[in-house]
């Protein structure tokens, strides 16, 4: 599990790769939070193109980040989910609060 980031035009891109489950959730939370706290952004894009596996633990992690950024009125978007992650996101209505973008 790895979290990489880059900033482009006031947008923070968080690239999550590897496997996101209960075992890696703690690391994912703190790695994402340290990037989210590092500056002021207009929006955040979570890029999941490198995510090889995710179970519902990932939903908890993402919702936690959503709640955190909602206090700053910073929207978070999801991009490039795998078919499996997409299925879990639709099931949990995650896209209602973190819309999918291309």
């Amino acid at each position, binding site marked *: 599990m790895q979290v990489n980031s880059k900033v482009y035009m006031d947008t923070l891109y968080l690239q999550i790769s590897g*496997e996101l*489950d*209960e*075992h890696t959730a703690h690391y994912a*939370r703190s790695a994402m939070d340290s990037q989210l706290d590092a500056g002021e952004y207009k929006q955040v894009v979570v890029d999941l193109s490198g995510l090889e*596996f995710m*179970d*519902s*633990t990932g*939903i*908890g*992690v993402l*919702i*936690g980040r959503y709640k955190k950024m909602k206090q700053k009125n910073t929207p978070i978007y999801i991009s490039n989910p795998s*078919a*499996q992650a997409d*299925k*879990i996101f639709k*099931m*949990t209505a995650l896209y209602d609060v973190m819309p999918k973008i291309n």
Partner: protein
Amino acid sequence: MNYINEMTLTFDSHSINEGFARSAVAAFCVQLNPTLDEITDIKTAVSEAVTNCVVHAYPKSVGKITVWVGLTKTREIDIKVMDNGVGIPDFEKAREPFYTTKPNEERAGMGFTVMESFMDNVNLSRNENGGVIVEMTKSLERRRAVMVGGEND
């Protein structure tokens, strides 16, 4: 039920074993020549069940988790994930979407919902010690099965 092949794994409830368990089950099921989607569904469901054991069955200790898998000639995969932990008082409640007993830990409460969506059937029961048995089945789509010895084809 007649199984053409079965396996049982018992391991400690360390979270690092979630990845081991889902990969081991997936590797065992490959002999039925499933689609990639089917394998991903199975991996996800096993991950959810094992995570429940790690987080809820043994919240303050390390216990044993047993995963059993049986494969049938008709390309059905039966999986049991069993623990000897604290148990689930109310199965109906536990299965409700978004229900979690740990609301302060950023948990989605979607484990059983995901299992139900990714598998054909999910059944919960208790063992004699009050631990939980999660039994899941999935029928693979009709494809030619590949198995060493060709005994199932």
